[in-house]
């Protein structure tokens, strides 16, 4: 019954967040930022007697995906803005207006409600970001598309990166939304937090803060990274996981609805 209820909640939340024009706006913002020309031509010496065409195709595909992964970091600000809106709409707005009480008056658990709302926020951002990155990668060197389809590990790495970035943003915005309980505070506060993190990572050189830490994730996924890169990329993920667990526990055990 609870599982069934969870699926019903999830489909309801997905319908809410995927309604026109949320995904369209996300796609437009992501595409515009990701496709702004990043002129970085990769060059490598090749030994014509000692290389196969398969190796060259693989190298080109690797460069295309790496550039796509690198460009994904420029989608940080749109992701932060839309993540704040989704987090606020799914949690703080419903808590403030008493809609969550209506949800919970059905035979369902707080856990199911939390998980369905969190997953829907994650999915709407993840699906649109992945779509944009895949478009970018496939259009980067068009002759290469068939190789990318048949060797799916590159595209899966790209999607994993999109998932990690979305996870960090959604965890921060959702926890802000749950702990603040007020739509206005959640909307402004969570975006301000993410924006300050970006400023700090850029100006103070704190490379373990997002979005600078996302570059470390790109390097780790596509090249052999160092220990410092592992540290930089995992700090934001661990913190995001902590926030997700804390907000889950707070929502399911401590949250009191007036």
């Amino acid at each position, binding site marked *: 019954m609870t599982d069934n209820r969870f699926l019903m909640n999830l489909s309801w939340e997905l319908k809410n967040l995927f309604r026109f024009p949320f995904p369209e706006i996300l796609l437009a913002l992501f595409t*515009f930022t990701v496709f702004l020309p990043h002129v970085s031509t990769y060059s490598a010496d*090749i030994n014509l007697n000692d290389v196969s065409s398969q190796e060259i195709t693989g190298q080109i595909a690797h460069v295309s995906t790496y550039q796509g992964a690198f460009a994904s970091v420029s989608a940080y600000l749109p992701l932060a803005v839309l993540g704040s809106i989704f987090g606020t709409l799914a949690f703080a707005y419903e808590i403030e207006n008493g809609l969550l009480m209506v949800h919970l008056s059905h035979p369902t658990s707080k856990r199911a409600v939390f998980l369905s709302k969190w997953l829907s926020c994650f999915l709407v951002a993840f699906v649109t970001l992945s779509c944009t990155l895949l478009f970018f990668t496939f259009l980067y060197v068009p002759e290469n598309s068939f190789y990318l389809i048949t060797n799916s590990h590159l595209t899966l790495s790209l999607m994993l990166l999109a998932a990690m970035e979305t996870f960090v943003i959604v965890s921060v915005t959702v926890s802000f939304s749950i702990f603040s309980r007020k739509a206005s505070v959640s909307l402004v506060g969570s975006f301000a937090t993410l924006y300050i993190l970006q400023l700090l990572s850029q100006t103070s050189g704190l490379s373990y803060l997002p979005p600078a830490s996302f570059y470390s994730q790109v390097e780790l996924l596509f090249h052999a990274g160092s220990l410092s890169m592992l540290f930089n990329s995992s700090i934001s993920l661990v913190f995001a996981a902590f926030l997700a667990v804390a907000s889950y526990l707070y929502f399911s055990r401590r949250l009191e609805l007036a």
Partner: protein
Amino acid sequence: MNMARFWFRIGVCTTIIGLCIFFSNIATQGPSSTVGGQFSTGPNGTWAELYVPLLSGSKEIRINVPRSFEGTLYIFDYEGTKRLVEDGIREPILEENFKGSTLVDFALSRRGAYTIVIESHVPQTSQGTTGIVQKGGIKADMLQDSAIVILVGLTISGIGGALKIIRSHKPTHNLSQKQACALACLEIAVGFVSIGSFICE
């Protein structure tokens, strides 16, 4: 969500992606950049470098070598590189003999992976540098690709819209609903293909 609405939304999303690619290309126009580095060839040897991607538009390649150096510059596109590596067949898009430092202008119609090969005609080891200057400006191939994406998006949303209209009306002809759907989709596809071919021409 029913299928007609689903395809309509997919079409709208694809159109939006195409429009954003179009506008992002127009808005920034791409700054100029230079790529390249050092190279070394053995006696009568060859040196090859793969570039991913070289953008479309006019370019110049600067080759700085000693005055006594003589050689040939080849530029291969993706297919040419594959043929060169697999069968050893040389089908370059550009071939130019040079002596000493030189500057070669060329233009690419499409972005993609290109290989620059320098073949030495001197019997000693030589060193030099290459630099490819990519000039900024609107990339025509990217605009063309975005137009194709927009066209595909409009076609899909058109099919979705047609499905929606057909399902909401009772048939006034002898065709079954599936046949009517197929006919409408075919008509829309033919319409878009004709528009597309007209634009391409």
